[in-house]
C-alpha cells in the first residue's frame, strides 16, 4: 500500500467541518469514486469532523490518497487532543452519545466506510482512521 498524495484540514470551527467535506469531495472525485460512494465518504467526514469539533474543541483531519496494486482508495485520519474515549466499545454502540448527539457518528461512519479504527487515551486524545477503496 503506497501513499500517492496527502494533505490536512484543521477543524476548529463548525464551518471547518464543511471545509473538510469539500476537501474530501475533491479528493474522492480525483480518485474516481462514484456519486453514492462519494456521498458515503463525505457523510462519514461530516460525522467524524463534527465529533472532533464537539467533543475535543478541534483537531485535524489528515487525508491520504492510496494505491494498493491496481486498487485506488483513500484514508482519513481525525486526530484531536481532547478528553479521549474511556470505553471505545461503548462509543461504537448504536445510539450511544455523551455529547447530546444522536450517537450515530462512530457506528454510522463505520457502516459508510470499509474500515474504521479508533485509538484513544483518556486525557490525551483520540485518533479515528477510516479507509475506503474504490470498487472496480
Amino acid at each position, binding site marked *: 500500500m503506497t501513499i500517492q498524495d496527502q494533505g490536512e484540514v484543521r477543524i476548529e470551527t463548525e464551518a471547518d*467541518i464543511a471545509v473538510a467535506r469539500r476537501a474530501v*469531495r475533491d479528493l474522492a472525485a480525483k480518485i474516481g469514486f462514484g456519486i453514492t460512494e462519494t*456521498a458515503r465518504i*463525505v*457523510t462519514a467526514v461530516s*460525522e467524524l469532523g463534527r465529533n472532533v469539533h464537539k467533543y475535543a474543541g478541534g483537531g485535524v483531519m489528515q487525508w491520504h490518497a492510496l494505491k494498493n496494486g491496481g486498487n485506488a482508495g483513500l484514508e482519513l485520519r481525525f486526530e484531536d487532543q481532547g478528553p479521549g474515549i474511556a470505553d471505545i466499545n461503548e462509543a461504537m454502540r448504536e445510539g450511544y452519545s455523551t455529547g447530546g*448527539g444522536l450517537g450515530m457518528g462512530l457506528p454510522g461512519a463505520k*457502516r*459508510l466506510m470499509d474500515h474504521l479504527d479508533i485509538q484513544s487515551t483518556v486525557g490525551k486524545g483520540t485518533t479515528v482512521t477510516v479507509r475506503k477503496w474504490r470498487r472496480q
Partner: protein
Amino acid sequence: MNVNETISVIQIRNVLLVTMPADPDDSTIAALQERTLEAMNNRDVQGLVLDLSKVEILDSYFARTVAETAQMVGLMGGTTIIAGMRPAVAITATELGVTLGRTRTVMTVERALELAGQRQVNGKQQR
C-alpha cells in the same frame, strides 16, 4: 457566502418553498430552522415544501434539524412536505441510520406543491 451555501425562501400562493443548497454548513442549516419558522409566522402561509433536490449530503445534524423543523411547523399548525431527495443521499442517510421522523416525502417539488395546494383547497371547502 457562495452559491453552495445559501437558502432560498419563496412563497408560492400560500405555500412556503424553501430550497436547501448542495452542501450547507452548520450555520446555514441552523438558519433553515429560524428563517422557515419566521416566514411561516410573518407570511400568510399554511404549508412548507422543503426542496432537498440540490442537497448532496444529509448527515445526522442536518437530518435532525429537518425533522425538528417539520415538527415545529406542525406545532404552528402547518404541514411539511420534503421533496426531491437524491438517490445517493437516500442510500447514505439510511446506512448512516438517520430518519426524518414522520415527515411526508415526495419525489419532486412539483408534486409537493400540488399536494400542499390541494390541502388548502380542501381546507377552504370544509369551511
